[in-house]
């Protein structure tokens, strides 16, 4: 077990070393990321300056929603997105074949050999905004709410990683998965806003088929004591369970996809 962890740590080190071959580009990328997410935050601020409330949420609450979503997403995606987004290329080029002949868990190898430190930009932006928003918004702090905050952030991270893993895993069967990622990001952008501003149909989708509501609006609404559409009192427990449950589903899906793997030719 310890030996396995050592291998994973080495994979991360090697990946970081690879990235540092292109140091300049790396930092330029981070700055670009901070600027682009900063611009989104600015848009929300401008909107709120004009309208005061959005679906009953004020500026600090929306800043909390934005930063919670960004943090949960970047933590979850650093463990999955870049690695699995390129899985279809690995399948097409046959690189995955070579990986399958190694005595190491394929998913773990993929994830840790590409653990994306590029999300540093997201995190550098998200944490200060989150800290400010937690203080500015009216959160009723207690032991319970603190535990809920940590637990729901963890669960949200798992939801992100699990959904991305499932989408990426489809490349093992269909070779292509990019169109699914496009759909994912379509919904993902909506999670920067409170769930209650969307029509009921969309709310249902985001709580079930594309359960992205659990990476931001559900946990943050619970934390702020706001009503959660459709889930009501169950919101807190559902959002805490969503992560672990989806991780189990993602593992089963990944195994199934690997067993159906056909390679890409020859």
């Amino acid at each position, binding site marked *: 077990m310890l030996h396995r962890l050592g291998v994973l740590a080495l994979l991360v080190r090697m990946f970081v*070393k690879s990235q540092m071959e292109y140091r300049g580009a790396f930092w330029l990328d981070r700055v670009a990321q901070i600027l682009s997410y900063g611009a989104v935050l600015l848009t929300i601020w401008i909107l709120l300056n004009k309208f005061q409330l959005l679906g009953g949420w004020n500026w600090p609450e929306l800043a909390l929603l934005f930063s919670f979503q960004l943090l949960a997403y970047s933590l979850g995606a650093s463990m999955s997105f870049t690695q699995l987004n390129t899985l279809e290329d690995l399948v097409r080029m046959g690189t995955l074949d070579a990986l399958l*002949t190694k005595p190491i868990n394929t998913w773990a190898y993929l994830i840790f050999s590409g653990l994306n430190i590029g999300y540093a930009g997201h995190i550098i932006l998200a944490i200060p905004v989150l800290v400010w928003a937690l203080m500015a918004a009216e959160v009723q702090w207690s032991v319970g709410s603190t535990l809920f905050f940590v637990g729901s952030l963890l669960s949200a991270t798992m939801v992100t990683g699990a959904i991305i893993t499932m989408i990426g895993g489809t490349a093992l069967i269909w070779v292509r998965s990019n169109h699914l990622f496009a759909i994912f990001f379509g919904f993902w952008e909506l999670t920067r806003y409170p769930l209650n501003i969307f029509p009921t149909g969309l709310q249902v989708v985001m709580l079930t088929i594309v359960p992205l509501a659990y990476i931001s609006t559900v946990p943050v609404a619970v934390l702020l004591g706001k009503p959660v559409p459709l889930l009501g009192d169950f919101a807190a427990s559902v959002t805490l369970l969503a992560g672990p449950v989806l991780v189990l589903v993602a593992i089963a899906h990944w195994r199934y996809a690997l067993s159906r793997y056909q390679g890409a030719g020859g």
Partner: protein
Amino acid sequence: MTALIEARGVSKRFRQHKRFPGLLGAFKTLVTAEYTEVTAVSDIGFDIAAGEAVGYLGPNGAGKSTMIKMMTGILVPSAGTLSVLGRTPHQQRMANAHEIGVVFGQRSQLWWDLPVIDSFTLHQRIYDIPQARYAENLKRFSTLLDLTPFLDRAVRQLSLGQRMRAEIVMSLLHDPKILFLDEPTIGLDVVAKDAVRKFLAEINRERGVTIILTTHDLQDIETICPRLIMVDQAKLIFDGELHRLRAALGSARRLTLEFVTDPGPLALTTATLTADEGLRKHYLLEREDVSLVQILGEVGSDRGLKDVALHEPDIEEVIRTFYQRRNAAATVAP
């Protein structure tokens, strides 16, 4: 001796979404759920014993890589049974992984941006190779394949030949019992090909590593593999020693005799005269057991024989003849 690899009636069929031609067809492809089955490997069986070196030969699309992928556990056979080192490859992929080495000629397993040695270190950790063993193997193989000068260079700066040598060394660091190579010499120049072939032959001979390699370069097989398995259109068409292929596929040797003066028509019992140019006469040797000495004995020493040229058809020619005949047969058959 029990076989290291046993294949019995192994088949692999791929299901492909049926594609329709043209723009309208593209839409039709999107909405229909029709599939075509493509058979990549059909009812193939063989045994490979420890220490053998086997060349797996066939034209593009004959199912060579698919067979390698099944033997290494990447793909699941559609039918038949396959056993590698006593295990079913796809079910015990991880267990087998420790005892096999795999090299894919067209896809690198090295880390592109890092020095070669970093990929080797990772390999050591993944396969849990004891330090002493690792150091010894690294030293020995690096010397044999002349890797030492570029071990510290980033993989992206290497030539294809250097990279392939590094790939092969890496695949052997954990002392695998079987080494699978899928087109290991593809794209290499003559010198690099030669280095790779000699190295593989030596590893097979000295370390007893069982080698299975796919190729369409016959020279690979002539240098490395005493045994040849030939596939065509998913089916096995020959399995045996290389020198038997000629006989099996029915290609004869050709002999040219050159004389100082024309001895006139010269019929031999050991060879068939095919062309007579007077001073030069061409024969076909249909029997494998006839030696040049026997023929020269029959010609005799008093006919003014100046020169002799025996033309052994190379495998390439043998195989070409085989395909031509097969295609001719296919057009004749009802």
